């Protein structure tokens, strides 16, 4: 049985790799996409268990991607954690996304949350 897929959509490579490393430690398969449009195209082909979504992305914004995921019946099981430096935006989008983390995101928090969300989907 393959590990569940976590898609990290984050334009900052450094951060993306930290998230990926944390998620891998929580036994996720990880994939990193650094721009919004590429993420939208990729989401046509895959059904990730978890999406780590940065709100501030080049070309297509994180909000648009969030809307796309939440309106796609194929992705109804997909959980979304948004990450943003803007705490107010995180607060505002918290109900729409499954969870919001304010940057700097602590890998321990991400790991805990990811584990929790995965257990919710697998049950």
């Amino acid at each position, binding site marked *: 049985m393959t590990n569940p897929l976590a898609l990290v959509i984050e334009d*900052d490579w*450094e951060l993306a790799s930290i998230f990926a490393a944390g998620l891998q*430690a929580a036994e996720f398969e990880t994939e990193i996409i650094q721009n919004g449009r590429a993420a939208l195209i990729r989401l046509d082909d895959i059904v990730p268990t978890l999406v780590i979504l940065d709100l501030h992305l080049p070309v297509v914004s994180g909000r648009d991607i969030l809307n796309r995921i939440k309106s796609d019946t194929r992705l109804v099981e997909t959980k979304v954690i948004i990450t943003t430096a803007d705490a*107010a935006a995180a607060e*505002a989008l918290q109900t729409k996304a499954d969870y919001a983390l304010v940057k*700097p995101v602590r*890998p321990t928090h991400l790991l805990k949350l990811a584990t929790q969300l995965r257990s919710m989907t697998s049950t």
Partner: protein
Amino acid sequence: MHWQYTPYIVPLLIATLISLTIARYTWQRRATLEAKTFLWLAILVAVWTFGYALELAGVDLATKIFWAKAQYLAIATLPLVWLMFAVQYIGKGAWITRKSISLLAVVPIITIILVWTNEAHGLVWKQTRLDANGPFPALQVEYGAWFWLYSAFSYLLLLGGTLVLFSILRRSTHLYRRQISMLLVGGLAPWVGNGIYLTGLSPIPNLDLTPFAFTISGIAIAYGLFRYHFLDVLPIARRAVMEGMRDGVVVLDTQNRVVDINPAAQRAVKRHSSAVLGQTIDQLFADWPDLVDRFRDVTEVVTEIAINNNHKQRWLELTISPLYSKRKQLIGRLVVFHDITKRKQAEAVVIRARDQALAASRLKSEFLARISHELRTPLNAILGHTELFEMGVYGDITDKQKQATQKIINNCTNLTHLVNELLDQASLESGKLILNNNAFTATDLIKPIQTKINGLAKVKEIKLTTWVSPDLPETLHGDLYRLQQVLSNLVGNAVKFTESGWVQIDLTYVDDAHWAMQVSDTGPGIPLDAHEYIFDPFRQVDGSLTRLHGGTGLGLSIVKDLTTLMGGQVVLDSRPGQGSTFTVILPFEPVEQDDILG
């Protein structure tokens, strides 16, 4: 000397009494030169009327001649004193010099000498006799050559004095015009009386009406004196103020015609008063028709106006006030203008400096925001990698390494907090912080604060309690995140500064439009003088506390700025040694942000 009673002496004695009363009144107000001269005038009139009364009462020729001579002490000098008074009254006292007085006194002195030596030469009276034909025995005289010369001279002086008073009458305001009119009545009456006597038109033969006329003079002048206080406030002083003023003054009547204009106003319109008196404001202010139209029917205004003068812009402060008669009827307008160009220029410099300072402050805020933002990216990476390291993602680590990474993480967290506060402060200062209003409950607001602060409170053994007023609505509206930030800063501070005791959070109902978040503690309290600056950025009560407790010094500044942005206010109640209570009063209805930002 033999005396007899005749009713004609009664008005003369009354005139004497009036003159003496006036003299007494004037004596009490003899501070000014013209008052002293007027005092002499009154005394001389009294001497004349009293002398004439005794002349009439005298039975024999010798008695009558003696008192007729005595009267000349007044008769001969009165015209000169009258002229002196008139000249001093219009403020030209400087004209009266020792030389001019000596010169003008020659004729009166010679007259007095000639009167008293008349028996030797008959130059004043050629003949004197007792006329018993009239209603009383009268002294009848045939005048000599000197009398006519003296009379001509006296009339010239009287005329001079009267003309002098007329000259000021033309230029005087309403109040003083009445006063000077009274004075002129007083001055002209003896002329008329004297003229009637000399031309033989007197209704009672042999009775000289001149001193009787002085009764009228006395009354007229006394009326002017008591009613219009002409020795108290001199029209000339008023005139001098008007003339000397640097403000332009124009008096208009109800038809908008110029009644009076002072030199400053004449200079402003580049016209002489003689040319503009009686003109309409359209003619007077022909260069500024717009202004004339704008203020044509305005009776009361204080405003600043810009005018173009020789292609240069000048600023004037214009004051228009209504003028009312005693019966409260509008009789005209007073227009005063004051050149404020220099002040306006100075203001412009200040405004420019302020704009530059604001621009600099904005640049600083933007710079701060940018720097803070840029600082966060590497911080995220440092924190992330360190945590991964601590989690053992990069391989097993020793306990010592674990402790070190924990310290790095703590410091990074503090640094992140600092950067976030700087960013908030910068956004607040540059007006870029946008509020996100939503509905929430009291629990939504308080719970995360409790979770966040409880740890520290437990460590310090401080009791952290909360109370939500039952009359507070279940649903509140506002930016929950920012409200939490405000509350968290206040509670964080309270716990930080309190060494023992408790910290209490209250959510209360204030009035129909307001609710409040209140944070009280049993901490050291804040000295009164610090209340003023404690909300300024980077300020704490004193340096030692800053060192003792750490922090950016931005917490309370952010509390205040956020509260203001939300349309609320922060009230501080604190005394050293008695703890502190911060109350954040907020509107139930969140304000539109544009209203606050202006």
